[in-house]
């Protein structure tokens, strides 16, 4: 006999007829009888974990209405005193551990648990709060805040992520009080494969998963700035927003503004701080560096007999990059293209995104952008950009743009790849992989098998080695740098260092097979990479040796041992004549780069002047990569510095300063002066630093700290080791 197609049951003394297989919950819902629930959502498979929807069906125990199928002639009581009492106790138990008012209750007043508690007149719970939360707050995601203490383990987010969005990121882990939701293998949400679609946040009944607005930032709109807030519906009609959660866009209304610019209008200035990215919808823009390419320099210094005589006596070699064989022809900026050094202007078109680093990492703008024609663009905050970057459609479009337009320039901008042929670049075009890493994420671990070579496209990477005393930072890599060649070229085939993303990083990954083909076909590339690998290994070895041979001393912990070159003044010889300062100013067009004050020990003064640190914190974040190290020693600031001041802020010793000089006539923008950062560059265009050369009393010395302090602390007091003779230094005499 076939089962009946319909059944009849009684719910709260009301006879109802429903299709067979209907749950009690749905049967009641269809007939306008509400049953409270927390874990059940109409569009998700019911699981019956919260038990709030319990009803009395006349059995020994109450049953969860969301999962129990209705039966013919069943008598159900949904709202008896005893049932209400059971629900109240359940809610009270849940409220005992709930951080009331939770984030959702504060934001929108609609926490389902707290609403239920109010309706059941649940006051202060009788039960004790658990002593320690199982997990702390997780703020790693840019758009979703995770508060495990508000989670009631209803599993709605899990089902939303898996059943509705098919992302399968969230799951449950642990037992008892240690039970919690987790992302991938219990990773922070921001580091997991979560695509920030927002479905879990929308599904969550409490404040465990809430929308994280970008606080304190508001995109200005209105007629004065030609910007209008864009509705979610309008955004979803744009191809790039395909696949983005409409709910997320609704919740973040105001985070995307549509702006229109007339031809010639400036969209952003280089060096300005910002927090937004721009996506070009229509039109094209010119992107360039308007700051004059010059070190702090005065013009007209060649006039007059004495000046000409002076120029013969103090040779100034400008832009000595050739001797380093860097041959750097491009200036890296925060855009899909790089600017040629000799002609730093490029164009961006509809579909291009610029300002990613500024938006994600809050770095200064790396270039000036001006509308080349009438332009429509979307300006967006970080949370929206983060969602877009994780959106498959958007990523595919950006990747395609990069491969088509920027990959070739990027490869050619790296000097070691200058000899790659067009056909090989075309071959690589579709084989490289673009990978993104969140701040703090490890790209590769020391000791891992080397399976790929990486080019840095966006962001900064820390390269470090493990040693018994802790982590030793070897270098920082920015756009234009690369890593992974040592492991691939060595016999062991293992990574020799750990590479970690310092901020939001994007790398171009070249797989081992393609790398081997590249070095096989292009011997010059192989030779260059091997030379670089040798230099890096030697440098690392030298640093490890110095670290091991350094005596530990409280005084030295003031950062002196991180220095590669210190300017030290012997106060027993120094007559405080300031000739060193005058010489420095004379060598740098009136602007000194040293201050005759600083740390003192015994009769030595460590002057305030660039220390050429091993761990150059000043280099992290430069939007145009103008601060760099030369030949592993001198830290120099290239002439395209945009004067943002980030390096000056980063230097913990105050050794970098900004100076103004007049902007050339006709320069773009409203500024009459432009700022450039300056720091001691060891007068690399002379055999010896000017301060040392000009001291009349032989009191100023550039020293190698490990040698100098090591011998001093060993009890053997020596005269300062002259700069040019210090081991490990370049002897340029």
């Amino acid at each position, binding site marked *: 006999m076939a089962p009946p197609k319909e059944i009849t049951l009684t719910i709260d003394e009301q006879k109802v007829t429903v299709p067979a297989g209907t749950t009690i919950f749905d049967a009641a819902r269809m007939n306008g009888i509400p049953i409270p629930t927390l874990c059940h959502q109409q569009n998700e498979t019911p699981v019956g974990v919260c038990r709030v929807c319990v009803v009395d069906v006349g059995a020994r125990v109450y049953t969860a209405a969301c999962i129990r199928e209705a039966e013919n002639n069943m008598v159900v009581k949904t709202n008896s005193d005893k049932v209400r009492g059971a629900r109240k106790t359940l809610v009270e138990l849940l409220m005992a551990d709930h951080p009331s008012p939770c984030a959702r209750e504060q934001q929108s007043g609609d926490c389902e648990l707290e609403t239920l508690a109010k309706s059941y007149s649940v006051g202060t719970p009788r039960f004790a709060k658990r002593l320690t939360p199982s997990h702390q707050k997780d703020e790693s995601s840019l758009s979703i805040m995770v508060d495990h203490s508000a989670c009631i383990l209803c599993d709605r987010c899990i089902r939303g992520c898996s059943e509705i969005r098919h992302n399968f990121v969230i799951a449950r882990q642990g037992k008892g009080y240690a039970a919690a939701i987790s992302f991938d293998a219990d990773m922070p949400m921001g580091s997991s494969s979560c695509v920030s679609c927002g479905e879990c946040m929308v599904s969550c009944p409490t404040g465990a998963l809430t929308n994280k607005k970008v606080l304190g930032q508001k995109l200005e709109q209105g007629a004065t700035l030609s910007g209008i807030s864009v509705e979610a519906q309008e955004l979803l009609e744009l191809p790039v927003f395909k696949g983005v959660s409409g709910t997320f866009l609704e919740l973040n209304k105001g985070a995307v503004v549509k702006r229109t610019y007339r031809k010639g209008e400036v969209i952003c200035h280089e060096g300005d701080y910002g927090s937004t990215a721009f996506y070009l919808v229509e039109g094209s823009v010119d992107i360039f560096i308007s700051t004059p390419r010059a070190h702090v320099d005065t013009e007209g210094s060649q006039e007059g007999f004495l000046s000409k005589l002076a120029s013969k006596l103090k040779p100034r070699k400008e832009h000595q990059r050739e001797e380093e064989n860097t041959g750097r022809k491009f200036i890296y900026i925060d855009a899909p293209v790089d600017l040629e050094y000799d002609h730093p202007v490029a164009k961006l078109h509809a579909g291009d995104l610029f300002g990613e680093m500024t938006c994600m990492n809050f770095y200064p703008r790396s270039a000036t952008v001006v509308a080349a024609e009438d332009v429509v663009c979307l300006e967006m905050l970080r949370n929206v950009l983060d969602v877009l970057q994780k959106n498959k459609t958007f990523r595919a479009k950006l990747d395609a743009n990069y491969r088509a337009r920027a990959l070739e320039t990027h490869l050619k901008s790296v000097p070691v790849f200058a000899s790659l042929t067009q056909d090989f670049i075309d071959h690589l075009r579709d084989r490289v992989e673009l990978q993104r890493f969140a701040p703090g994420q490890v790209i590769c671990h020391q000791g891992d098998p080397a399976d790929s070579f990486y080019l840095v496209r966006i962001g900064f990477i820390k390269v470090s080695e493990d040693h018994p005393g802790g982590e030793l930072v070897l270098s920082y890599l920015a756009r234009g740098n690369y890593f992974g060649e040592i492991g691939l070229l060595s016999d062991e085939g293992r990574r020799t260092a750990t590479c970690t993303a310092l901020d939001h990083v994007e790398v171009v990954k070249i797989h081992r097979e393609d790398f081997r083909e590249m070095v096989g076909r292009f011997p010059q590339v192989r030779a260059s990479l091997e030379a670089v690998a040798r230099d890096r290994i030697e440098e690392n070895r030298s640093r490890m040796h110095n670290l091991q041979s350094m005596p530990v001393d409280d005084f030295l912990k003031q950062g002196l041992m991180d220095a590669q070159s210190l300017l030290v003044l012997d106060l027993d010889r120094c007559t405080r004549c300031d000739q060193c300062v005058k010489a420095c100013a004379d060598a740098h067009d009136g602007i000194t780069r040293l201050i005759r004050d600083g740390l003192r020990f015994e009769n030595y003064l460590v002057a305030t002047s660039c220390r050429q640190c091993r761990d150059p914190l000043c280099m992290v974040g430069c939007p145009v990569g103008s601060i760099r190290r030369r030949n592993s020693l001198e830290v120099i600031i290239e002439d395209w510095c945009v004067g943002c001041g980030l390096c000056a802020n980063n230097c913990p010793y105050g050794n970098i300063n900004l100076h103004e000089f007049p902007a050339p006539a006709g320069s773009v923008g409203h500024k009459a002066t432009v700022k450039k950062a300056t720091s001691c560059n060891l007068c690399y265009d002379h055999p010896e630093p000017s301060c040392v050369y000009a*001291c*009349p009393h032989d009191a100023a010395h550039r020293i190698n700290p490990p040698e100098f302090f090591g011998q001093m602390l060993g009890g053997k007091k020596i005269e300062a080791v002259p700069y040019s003779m210090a081991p490990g230094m370049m002897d340029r005499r």
Partner: protein
Amino acid sequence: MLIDRTHRQWLWGSVIGLAISVVIYIPYAHFTIGGARGGTMIGILYGIVGFGFMVFAGLLSLRKRFPVWRMGRTSTWMRGHLWLGLISYPIIFLHSGFSFGKGALTWWMMVIFTIVIVSGIVGAIIQHYLPKVMTREVPYETIYAEIPVIRSQLLDEADVKVAEVTGVSMSTGAVTNAAEDAGGVIVTLVQMEEDVRNELTRFYDNDLRPFLEQPGGKGCEIANRSLSVAKFANLKTLLPDEIHPVIADLESICEEKRQLDHQIVLHRILHGWLFIHAPLSLALLLMGAIHAVIALTY
């Protein structure tokens, strides 16, 4: 400049050069009719050499004007200035036949030359010893041009510290909210008796503040370290324990001010002698040039 073993080559070179000059001079003086004098061939030669050394010594100031020019290290020029300048004096005496000359010009030249040499030797001695003294005695040393700024900062700091304790603004005399003046930080909530508060205020107004305001602190008792220590110790006995840290801070500010005053004195000694040496050297070179022209022409 520290005159150490790095000067040995210059020392021996100068001694040898002088010895050779003397060896030549003895027979020259013995056999020259009328005695050795500036007008003879050898006399003129001595004059040229001596004046040449003087000119080289004088060029040091020009060398220092262009410190970055690659024309030899400045320390080398300084050594040359010291030693060649020193032996130019006996060479000029050999040139003149150990006389001050017959005319007023040569007489004044020799007088000025003597003062220049003596001041130079004094200066070399000062610059040999005084840097060590300054390093030892002024651990709070700062850049000389910054001393007025530091002094002003010390005064402000002392004002704030006393205001925090007494509730009275030391710069304006107005009773203020000490917490606001201190940027919202209340250092102490100690209740002090009126006469005790007055004692601190009196000490500050009469002794400490005038000392901090005045460069040099002339006439102030606490300019003397021993007296200062005694005064602060006495003050501590009158004031509650809770504000002794503030008193210690004020004492430290005092000490720093004393050191800055001492630095000024030492700095003036270190460089003051140049006010005699430098202009007289320039005058000497000018007179020497005039003398050479006149002597050779007429």
